[in-house]
């Protein structure tokens, strides 16, 4: 084995194919990192390292992922493994089948070291809402990793896996990727199957890769992007090789800066990173264009009507009858409410109640219907902006990772998603990539959005920014 461990999937695959490294050797190294580091980071809810080692031994070195460890967020099912969604209501639930995304990764030679922590049912921006324990940011253990896929991003940042998958409903892949200094990609809605992802907001949820480089995210997309008859929202598209589509420059590209986001209060180092990125784009042959998305700041309030509404409907299935926790009551109604009360945490209850309120008779038109119209308006405006620009550049987050326990107000926590939510409302692809560090040494993430189905071009543009700002190609 070579003295230096591969940092990226690309390097790993090369080393394995050149017989400089075996999948078992790499997994053993990973196991040591996990055993040493995870008691502090707490990225994983459950580990399956012995099973992963057997899988690594059996992995075909010529397969696309060649036995690479890929962590899976614990709201995505893997047959025979627990799938808790970070909730007491599913604490002992064992998945009867695997998500299509997981099956695709396994078929491509990935091995799964464990299931990662998350905010309960993916509702949160810090992974502090997990019913079990909070995850810590590997860069600074007193900080949050972001959320809700904070376990997955922390695992990749800490070297516990070469990649991971998460779910992104309002930024849950991109925001924690920014906080942990890794790449997080939310594909176009419909590109990656959600079969086997426990539903939160079905018109918004996407599964996406988390990786150490943009190229690694493209390698994972090559494995996961496929039409799936088991997901009715999955779309048939021509085959694309996301890795082969990576281009070395931004020549001829128009990079849009959204005027309405300029006045927002962002941490000064993040504003400076935007300026550095803008200069790098020009140096690489891009032109900068000023675009308008007049109602983009209404995305956050629209989301916090639509997502809770969908969550209140989706989480209706947890009734203590067919799976999960059961707390007996005098009759069925009391059994339902006792089970749900004991099983759901505060934030989940809050969102279910908001959802039930905005969908209830007398309030539906003023809240849900209005939010749906605003969503359409923002989608139309974003589509128009993406006609005059090829990609839109924004910060991923207004601040870098905050301290555990620092944000206790629900509404303040929601505001961490201001830059990431518009892409979910419009169904367009968006990626967060690392762009330097702040004065405290905490990672900064910037975001690119692109038109629907431009995922390959978006990854290519992100790769140019990422490498120009010091990332590995």
């Amino acid at each position, binding site marked *: 084995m070579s003295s230096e461990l591969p940092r990226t999937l690309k390097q790993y695959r090369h080393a394995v194919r050149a017989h400089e490294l075996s999948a078992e050797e790499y997994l053993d190294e990973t196991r040591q990192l996990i055993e040493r580091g995870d008691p502090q980071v707490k990225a994983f809810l459950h580990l399956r390292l012995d099973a992963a080692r057997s899988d690594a031994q059996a992995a075909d070195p010529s397969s696309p992922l060649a036995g690479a460890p890929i962590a899976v967020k614990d709201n995505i099912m893997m047959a025979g493994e627990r799938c808790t969604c970070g909730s007491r209501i599913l604490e002992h*639930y*064992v998945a*009867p*089948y695997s998500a299509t995304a997981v099956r695709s990764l396994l078929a491509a030679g990935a091995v799964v070291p464990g299931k990662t922590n998350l905010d309960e049912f993916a509702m949160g921006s810090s992974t502090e809402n997990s019913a079990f324990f909070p995850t810590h940011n590997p860069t600074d253990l007193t900080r949050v990793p972001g959320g809700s896929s904070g376990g997955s991003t922390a695992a990749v940042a800490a070297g516990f896996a070469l990649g991971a998958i998460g779910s992104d409903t309002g930024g849950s892949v991109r925001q924690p990727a920014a906080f942990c200094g890794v790449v997080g990609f939310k594909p176009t809605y419909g590109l990656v199957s959600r079969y086997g992802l426990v539903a939160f907001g079905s018109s918004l949820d996407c599964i996406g890769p988390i990786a150490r480089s943009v190229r690694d995210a493209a390698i994972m997309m090559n494995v996961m992007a496929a039409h799936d*008859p*088991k997901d*009715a*929202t999955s779309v*048939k598209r021509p085959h694309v090789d996301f890795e082969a589509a990576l281009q070395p420059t931004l020549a001829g590209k128009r990079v849009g800066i959204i005027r309405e986001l300029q006045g927002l209060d962002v941490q000064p180092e993040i504003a400076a990173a935007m300026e550095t990125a803008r200069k790098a784009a020009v140096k690489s042959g891009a032109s900068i264009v000023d675009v308008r998305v007049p*109602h983009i700041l*209404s995305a956050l*309030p*629209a989301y*916090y*009507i639509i997502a809770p509404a969908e969550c*209140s409907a989706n989480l*209706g299935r947890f*009734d*203590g*009858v*067919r*799976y*999960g*926790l*059961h707390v*007996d*009551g*005098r*009759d*069925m*109604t009391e*059994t*339902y*409410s*006792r089970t*749900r*009360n004991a099983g*759901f945490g505060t934030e989940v*209850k*809050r969102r*279910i*109640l*908001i*959802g*039930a*309120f905005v969908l*209830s008779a007398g309030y539906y038109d*003023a*809240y849900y219907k*209005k*939010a*749906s*119209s*605003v969503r*359409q*308006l923002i989608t139309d405006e974003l589509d128009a902006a993406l006609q005059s620009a090829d990609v839109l550049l924004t910060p991923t987050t207004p601040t870098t990772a905050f301290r555990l326990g620092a944000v206790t107000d*629900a*509404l303040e926590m*929601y505001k961490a998603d201001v830059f990431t939510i518009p892409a979910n409302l419009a169904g367009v692809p968006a990626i967060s990539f690392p762009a330097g560090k702040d004065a405290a040494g905490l990672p900064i993430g910037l975001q690119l959005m692109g038109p629907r189905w431009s995922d390959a071009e978006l990854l290519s543009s992100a790769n140019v920014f990422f490498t120009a700002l010091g990332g590995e190609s």
Partner: protein
Amino acid sequence: MAMIIDKETLEHVASLARLEITPEEEGPLLGDLERILGYVAQLSSVDTSAIVSKRPAMTELRPDEPSAGLTREAGLGGAPAMRDAFVVVRNVMGGEDE
């Protein structure tokens, strides 16, 4: 300013959502919901009169053909109480349980 959500509305919504609100939870929840609903209510000032809501593209359904899916055992394996391959629940039609 008029409250958006009061105690009675919260109790009604909680019963719709099959959630019990304990007396200790009620005060903080009412405060949180009032602020969140007050925040999202800013959408009322957005002019959406020109918005024609688009129907989502027709979902393409898979062929309606039998195929191997989950076995009954796997599908029901997570149920808290089972008898003869059926899920056991409390009597829903009124009257006493067996």
